């Protein structure tokens, strides 16, 4: 089974106490990019923390989700 789609993530960096939502894009089990809810690519800093907000793998980023 190929693993592809988008997973919702909570992302923080720089010791921030709050996190923001971004979407992790997966192709064939590999992470190929991160995006905001509006589809804008996210360039990650070198050091960050991230955790899965929902383990559901969605075929696309849900429209209207805030980021």
């Amino acid at each position, binding site marked *: 089974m190929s693993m592809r789609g988008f997973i919702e*993530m909570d992302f923080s960096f720089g010791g921030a106490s709050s996190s923001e939502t971004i979407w992790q894009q997966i192709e064939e*089990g*590999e992470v190929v990019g991160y995006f905001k809810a509006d589809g804008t690519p996210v360039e990650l800093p070198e*050091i960050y*923390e991230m955790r*899965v907000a929902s*383990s559901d793998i969605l075929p696309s980023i849900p429209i209207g989700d805030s980021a």
Partner: protein
Amino acid sequence: MAANTDPIFSKVPKVQWTNGVTAANTAKDGTGTVDTVFTADAVNGSYLQKLTIRPRGTNVATVLRVFVNNGGDNTVAANNALIAELSLLATTNSEIVSIIGNEVPLNIPLPPGYRVNVTLGTAVAGGFAIAGFGGDY
């Protein structure tokens, strides 16, 4: 003081673990959010033979980083040392096929109060169960 000293062997077996390691922390100095797998005996120290890593379902590819911490606050980089890394391949959950796990051989003595912490380089959904096998001196 340790009970056995010449040669030194562990006296009491110790197995400790952490389940559901899922979060990413890309710091290479052991700071930030970590999962503690193994804590050495507070009086005599411990020996840690190995870590076993078992996927708990569907995960993207990631990397496991293993740190020794001297018992101090891990947010202070000087208290941590990166001692091992292991590439973890993508896994797909199955109820009919076993998912391949991994082992990290360490074979290290740990002074009293030292800890072994782990992080992932990429956040995963299913997570990993990580256990440390060793013994207290």
